[in-house]
């Protein structure tokens, strides 16, 4: 796969063949041109995409039945979505700052992102409280159940992201932990995960909005 080798070419190799052996002997043991961290993050994103996709499949299976009653979308939900967009945008500029070695800026922006994430989580909680007060309980209707499940699971993913965010903060903050290349890498991974969570939320929110 590395050096433009397709999976089919790879699987066609004859490892016992002397000509192939000469090529193989110089192989450096890496399959993809990716850092281990980045590949690890992709792994996690794939698992969690499958996880959400399966929920979406069951959702689309359920919503065609007559007893499905659409939930209202409180304005606060739009506001929360905006927060996610803003934090993703800030993360882009954080990445730029980190590429340019401006770690003071990175520190500030990471803090803002943290606050925004907390604001988002609290916002989601307020939405829950609002809806519960309006009588939209989790067991009243399947649409409600899916709404609470989607928001809860997305929130849990964000809390997981906050753990990684803490690790990133530590790498930027504590001078003994600063290894420039590593820190940049961590900031980049954290940013990718944040964008991913935004994408997941947009899909879930869009799904609930337009179905």
């Amino acid at each position: 796969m590395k050096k433009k080798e397709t999976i089919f070419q790879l699987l066609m190799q004859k490892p016992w063949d002397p000509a192939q052996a000469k090529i193989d002997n110089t192989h450096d043991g890496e399959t993809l041109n990716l850092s281990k961290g980045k590949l690890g993050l992709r792994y996690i994103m794939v698992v969690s995409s499958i996880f959400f996709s399966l929920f979406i499949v069951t959702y689309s299976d359920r919503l065609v039945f007559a007893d499905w009653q659409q939930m209202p979308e409180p304005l606060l939900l739009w506001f929360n979505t905006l927060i996610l967009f803003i934090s993703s945008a800030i993360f882009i500029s954080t990445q730029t700052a980190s590429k340019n070695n401006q770690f003071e800026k990175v520190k500030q922006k990471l803090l803002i992102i943290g606050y925004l994430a907390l604001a988002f989580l609290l916002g989601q909680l307020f939405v829950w409280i609002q809806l519960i007060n309006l009588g939209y309980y989790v067991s009243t209707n399947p649409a409600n159940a899916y709404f609470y499940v989607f928001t809860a699971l997305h929130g849990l993913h964000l809390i997981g992201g906050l753990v990684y965010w803490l690790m990133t903060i530590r790498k930027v903050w504590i001078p003994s932990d600063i290894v420039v290349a590593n820190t940049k890498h961590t900031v980049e991974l954290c940013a990718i995960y944040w964008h991913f969570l935004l994408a997941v939320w947009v899909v879930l929110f869009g799904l609930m909005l337009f179905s």
Partner: protein
Amino acid sequence: MTADSYEDIAANKGDVIPALEVPPQDLYHARSFWTRWIFCQDAKIIGIQYSITAIAIGLVALVLSWLMRLQLGFPELVPFIGAAEYYQFVTMHGMIMVIYLLTALFLGGFGNYLIPLMVGARDMVFPYVNMVSYWVYLLAVLVLVTSFFVPGGPTGAGWTLYPPQAITSGTPGGDGLGIILMLISLSIFVVGFTMGGLNYVITILQARTRGMTLMRMPLTVWGIFTATVLALFAFPALIVSCIMMTLDNLLGTSFFMPALVEFGEQSEYSGGSPILFQHLFWFFGHPEVYIVALPAFGIVSDLISVHARKNIFGYRMMVWAIVIIGALSFIVWAHHMYVAGMNPWFGFFFATTTLIIAVPTALKVYNWVITLWKANIRLTIPMLFALAFIVTFVNGGITGLFLGNVIVDVPLSDTYFVVAHFHMVMGIAPVLVVFGAIYHWFPLITGRFLHEGMGKFHFWVSFLGSYAIYFPMHYLGFVGVPRRYYEMYDSEYMTVSTNYLNQFITIVALIVGFTQLLFLYNIITSAKFGKKAGKNPWKACSLEWRTPEVPAGHGNFGKELPVVYRWAYDFNVPGAKEDFIPQDIAPNQVPEAEAEQT
């Protein structure tokens, strides 16, 4: 046995490719007893921790199977077992054996121990995550064990946990904590496994040593790798169904629960789909069969090749078959649901895909057999187990062809024929590989052999015994004995022969079960007093035997990582002095060996 003659050449490399200049990996260094043996980040120790935990919980499942068999054969001996207890034992036996024993042992146990050693890495790429993965797995096991002690006992819903019965009050553990703990335990297991899988996949893809291309890896690694990728796709389905069913149970949602009347009272559920659960469950459940089988395929290929002193026949085909089986395993799941009321055309589709899977699987079996053809077969204990695996797997596979066909499955569904089939194909067959693998790699882990006499006894009793148990079950299935019935003594349609057979099976099952205790005794005593094995006692080619010290020390490969010059199957190369050439021996170190013509 003395060290092989390659020891000296390996030290004197001469004019060969130098080891790759890699930045030193941040290796974890244990500082105390706790971090060395308990909270350890070394994959080898984690592998052993996984194995011990898996075998310990597996023993619980073994005891449960004895109790079930006693109830079926001699119910008067076990008056304390009623219908509820029987279903609880069936459920816990199945779930523990499939998930907490086999999956954890193959991937967590063998995966952790062998992957870094076989691909030439110092450790897994994320050792800390790897350690957490084990502790999360242990937590899952403990939650599961807790369910034995809660009021109402563990769930008795059957290992498939089908709703609505799984969470209704008529089912043992259904209205108590039993089912909740089971669902939570499974969810924790999936989280833990995802962390472990992250390590297996990325270590194999990105942390191999120089010269170790993917197509030079031993088939064991291919099997574990593909199984982990399957788990990556399949386990989310399990956790999704567990979350949804937990919510149905605790919060009264109706994801899976239809409107139903329970004890004369209308429940508050309405509109949920139990069939949806079945789809989700089997979308996980069928790949799960291959998550267990693929590592077994890989390991058995290596055992056969090493102990028959011959390269594995059709290495590339073996890899292709592993990958193709893995891919196909995702489009066969509904063959578990032929009697669930699905559209027959839907069933026809799944019958076709199911039968297609037999092609790459049969190809593997042919290749194993052809590898044995004119080979220098050594009937060591690992080899005996490998041979027994081939036979057993073919047996179980062929009954799978019966059950894969809708029209044959319908009458056989829910009979002992099914029980016999899946025990042969994914119970006995993989367990035989586990045994073979333990006998094979025990010298690697402890530096000593397992006792041979006890080993042979263990093999013959387990092998012949399991046939004595499961062959008659096919007959029981044909005569219509239903599975999951806790008592059949006075049923009029049962012939007398089924009673005798049940008694026979029970007696054999107890004998086979107790023989496993002898095996454990063998492991414990041989670890301390067994015959010393020396380095590479089986004269294998793969890297796990090429560490400077056996058992491998911290960082596995001493100062320099090995450089790989050949595949893992250079046995009996024409011209070579020894009948094998390890992977890290350069061509100019064995100039007399002729390259194979292809």
